[in-house]
């Protein structure tokens, strides 16, 4: 059964999504169904990661045993779609399944009063399927298919509160962004297929020659994935989408954003890595994009009054750290001494920041959702004095805010420290920007804390109570992870992050299907 894990991990949530419409008008039942399915998927992803860490790259071919076939003419090609799971894919799969589980748990109470819940959970599960497919597949066209699934389900979730005009508008924005990005990806896949006659990622990567057409394909892929992971100057959809989606959908939507970041890394490191000279230039582009993203994101966050919108701008800013970390690694990928000195650590720092950010930003957005749940508003000016009424939410918020601002001993500090140290080795100016961003982040969250939680209790919130238990449990899980990841970063780094970073660096392993070719 273990060998089928890469396939089962997408088959289970897909079955859950297809079956969800059968629970029409049984709102409790469909919520529990979604929690159950996401829980099972989480367990499968943990088992899968253990397999990958022990055995190395797992290849799963749909419908046959071996990935390739030697034709009578001696032409050796993969003829079927395959999943190729390395440590990076497994790491993303854990993030996706964990966040879908937390999101489903939180949604149990958060959207309980909405109508059409069987559709909501169906969309939530399909979003999980889309992310998992994107991070596990080893086939370029298949990547496009899963990107479409994640994009459409994300857009429908963003617009789910369709009785609000803003939600519909945000949904349409996200849909258009997704459509443009995935069509550009399709176009570049067509270019690559026209040139190499195959769609397998490893196969194309091995045979890539790097002419003008490849350059165009690389540019299009890079841009569309950067657009969908919310890098400046293509960040405009992020605040709308994150603000309007019901807070239970925030964690999976965050991971969907970073699944596109994963695709960006996969394309730069694995697919086009044989370009010895130009890849460091691509790395510099990634670094500069990262610095711009973090700085512009945080300056726009400072002026926001809507609590979820403010946090969404911080999400843009934090994406910059990941681009910076991994970009630093990409610039020195073909320079073994520098790679060992700081490149590998930089990549690990960037990837560690991905999971840390997913955890604390989901936590923060969920506390914002809790504030919305009890007060009915997201405007900071209308809140105040909620700390005494909602102690657990307050503590969760404090942990999340400390983590995003990079205060020790929380998880944000652990990954930001690595990024500071490694980007300093490349160019000290980068580090200055990163640190200033971090300070501004802290300032902005102090403002939120003071206006929402501190101050005299307001009369209109006299009867406010703490949010229901499922929401609290979801927040406590993430707050605990923030602390654990911050206190024991070494264990997480050694077990999960460095194998993932090595998977990006050792691209030859990926090209050979983990030694099968």
């Amino acid at each position: 059964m273990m060998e089928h894990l890469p396939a089962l991990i997408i088959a289970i949530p897909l079955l859950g999504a297809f079956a969800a419409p059968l629970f029409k008008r049984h709102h409790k039942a469909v919520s529990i169904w979604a929690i159950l399915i996401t829980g099972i998927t989480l367990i499968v992803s943990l088992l899968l990661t253990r397999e990958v860490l022990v055995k190395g790259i797992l290849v799963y071919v749909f419908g046959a045993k071996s990935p390739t076939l030697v034709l009578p003419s001696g032409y050796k090609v993969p003829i079927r779609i395959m999943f190729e799971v390395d440590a990076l894919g497994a790491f993303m799969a854990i993030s996706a399944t964990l966040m879908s589980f937390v999101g489903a748990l939180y949604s149990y109470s958060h959207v309980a009063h909405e109508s059409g819940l069987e559709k909501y959970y169906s969309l939530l599960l399909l979003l999980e399927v889309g992310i998992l497919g994107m991070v596990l597949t080893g086939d370029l066209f298949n990547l496009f298919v899963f990107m479409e699934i994640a994009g459409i389900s994300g857009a429908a979730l963003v617009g789910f509160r369709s009785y609000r005009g803003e939600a519909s508008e945000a949904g349409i924005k996200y849909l258009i962004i997704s459509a443009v990005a995935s069509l550009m990806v399709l176009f570049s896949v067509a270019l690559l297929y026209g040139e190499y006659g195959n769609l397998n990622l490893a196969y194309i990567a091995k045979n890539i020659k790097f002419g003008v057409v490849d350059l165009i394909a690389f540019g299009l892929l890079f841009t569309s994935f950067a657009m969908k992971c919310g890098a400046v100057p293509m960040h405009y959809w992020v605040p709308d989408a994150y603000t309007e989606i019901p807070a239970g959908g925030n964690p999976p939507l965050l991971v969907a954003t970073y699944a596109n970041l994963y695709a960006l890394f996969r394309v730069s490191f694995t697919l086009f890595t044989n370009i010895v000279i130009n890849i460091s230039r691509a790395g510099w582009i990634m670094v500069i994009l990262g610095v711009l993203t973090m700085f512009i994101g945080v300056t726009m966050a400072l002026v926001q009054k809507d609590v979820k919108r403010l946090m969404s701008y911080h999400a843009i800013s934090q994406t910059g750290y990941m681009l910076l970390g991994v970009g630093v690694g990409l610039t020195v990928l073909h320079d073994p001494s520098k790679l060992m000195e700081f490149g590998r650590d930089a990549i690990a720092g960037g990837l560690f920041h991905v999971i840390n950010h997913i955890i604390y930003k989901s936590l923060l957005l969920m506390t914002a959702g809790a504030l919305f749940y009890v007060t009915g508003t997201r405007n900071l000016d209308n809140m105040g004095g909620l700390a005494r009424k909602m102690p657990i939410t307050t503590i969760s918020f404090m942990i999340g805010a400390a983590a995003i601002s990079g205060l020790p001993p929380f998880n944000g500090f652990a990954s930001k420290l690595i990024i500071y140290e490694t980007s300093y080795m490349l160019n000290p100016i980068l580090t200055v920007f990163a640190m200033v961003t971090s300070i501004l982040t802290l300032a902005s969250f102090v403002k939120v804390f003071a206006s929402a939680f501190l101050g005299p209790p307001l009369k209109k919130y006299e009867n406010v109570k703490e949010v229901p238990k499922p929401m609290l449990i979801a927040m406590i899980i993430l707050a605990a992870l923030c602390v654990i990841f911050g206190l024991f970063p070494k264990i997480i780094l050694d077990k999960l992050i460095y194998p993932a970073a090595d998977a990006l660096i050792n691209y030859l392993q990926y090209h050979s299907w983990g030694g099968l070719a």
Partner: protein
Amino acid sequence: MKRGHIIALGVFIALILLVSLGITFVGKVPMTTDVRPLGLFYLKNSYFGNYAARSPEVVTSILWDYRGLDTLFETGVFFLAIISALALFRIEKKEEKVKEKGEGFTFIVKDTVRIISVLIVAVSAAIALHGHLTPGGGFQGGSALAVVPLLIIVAFSKYALEGRGLTKDTAMIVRSIGLISIIILVLIPLAAGGYLMQNLPVFPSHILGQLTSGSLVFYNLFEYIAVGAGFTAVFLLLSIPEKVFHKIIGGEKE
């Protein structure tokens, strides 16, 4: 359209043309006239050979055998599109009938629709179930099947369908059953010690002397049901008068 918009559009189109011409002539896109080696493999091995799907129809063997995963998830995309539409325009309250005056079409139209509907069901079933033999397949057959409710909506009214029990909800339940059957088909090879989405030799290539190309005929059958029901659900949604939406969901009026 303002003048600036026209200029911007013109520049945009010129840019696209320029880039595509550039790619073609400067980038030297290989313009192969031969069949690619991979395509040749599919052509040669769809019916004969050890790796065959035992289907004389190459397209179907690629769709549901060699690249079955893509097709499975394109089915997912279609499911997603329809469930998104239903989620965004959800009407949970019982909608009122909008009464229109008049007698409707003459008996000529109505009787013709009655006769044609039966024919369409037969033809669409043939398209779907012969998908592994002739061009066609589950999606094409299902789309043809969905013409029946569309004709009934036009000739009678959507209430004629809903009065007989074919509501959006029933259509979605039928659809879910079709899709769950597809997932079960995907999982069956596991029980036989094979791989997910494996076709031959887990499924028999012939049943009762008839060529069924392994699992292809079953995939087409369930896809046919799912697509037909999905389109029916979306047609029923689209035929709701706009004023009903205004009343229930709200939103701006003209």
